[in-house]
């Protein structure tokens, strides 16, 4: 995950190093009442990776990763194990295809609005509004599932 965002093996190692130490130091602050441990961990690693990626501004493009990730919700189907994953998978499936594609592309690649625009060839403003509306629809769908559960 970290490697996919920073696109450089040694930077990815830095991310994991910092994330492990952060987990070690901040474990006392982890409050199970506030949410799942897995989300907390994923947040720590992703945030560190995103910070490093932004700082490096991708001046060094690094090794372009083989596109082993199919950037559609189907890529998640093998990983669907928990209720939360199943819910997200289901709700991503309800989004309009272009919005879903942009959201998954951004998350998996750790891309900024501008980078998503560049890669998809879609104008920046459109990317921003598609992602926003997609996220809003995602939230509504997840909240509806939660209420129904």
């Amino acid at each position, binding site marked *: 995950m970290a490697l996919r965002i920073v696109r450089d093996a040694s930077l990815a190692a830095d991310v994991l*190093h910092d994330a492990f130490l952060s987990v070690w130091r901040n474990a006392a602050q982890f409050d199970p009442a506030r949410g799942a441990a897995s989300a907390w961990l994923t947040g720590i690693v992703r945030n560190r990776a995103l910070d490093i990626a932004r700082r490096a501004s991708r001046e060094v493009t690094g090794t372009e990763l083989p596109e082993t990730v199919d950037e559609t919700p189907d890529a998640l189907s093998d990983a669907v*194990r928990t209720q939360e994953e199943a819910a997200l998978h289901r709700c991503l499936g309800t989004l309009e295809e272009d919005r879903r594609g942009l959201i998954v592309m951004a998350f998996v690649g750790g891309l900024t609005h501008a980078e998503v625009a560049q890669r998809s060839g879609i104008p920046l403003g459109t990317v921003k509004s598609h992602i926003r509306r997609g*996220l809003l629809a995602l939230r509504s769908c997840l909240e509806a599932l939660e209420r129904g559960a």
Partner: protein
Amino acid sequence: MSGRLTQDFDDERDALAAEYVLGVLDAPERDEARRLLLRDPEFARYVRAWEARLSPMADGIPPVAPPESLWLRIEASLDEAAQAQAAPVAAPAPARSSARFWRATTFAAGALAASLAAFIVLRAPPAPVQAVLSASGSPAFVASVESDGAILVRAVGAPTVPAGRDLELWVLPAGATRPVSLGVLPSTGKQVPAGVATAPGTQLLVSLEPAGGSPTGQPTGPVVYAGKLQSL
């Protein structure tokens, strides 16, 4: 900017939280979000909610093994941190809360099951796995799976085990219904030789048992820590 969209967030901070967690903000925008995170509890709540919503997407990303040298660096940094903690200046908070936790258990062992809490495992296969075992949010152990498959469990908060009782470590592979004992877990930690399941989804459990461990081969006391191997 997009406030005039027909469909938009009621609270602009919720939108910013969503974009922050998704990772689409550029460096200045991220800095701004960071500052807001520190001073606005409502924004912090939005961020946590979005982390919970979006983090399952990370599980669709195939893991890549980090270089072996990384684990040496982490080991070294952790040792430094441990030494700093050992300084007799101020007792580290984790130790205090663990002691409080365990003191409470001697009075109300029945409440133990209710305080079942996170036992967090970071997994970066096939190299070592790291885990934080905590009860009621206060960490007790950190575990790591070495590249040879051995599991090293170290104490973080110096948990106090009630007299006449022992902690016992168990592994429960995904889909299995009966945990397998990994032996008594001393309050200082232990090393479990390779040969134990460490695939993502495998759970590690710690139960409170009579001295010497469970007499039955299955947990007889309450499970006080539990968690799942997780891929990063």
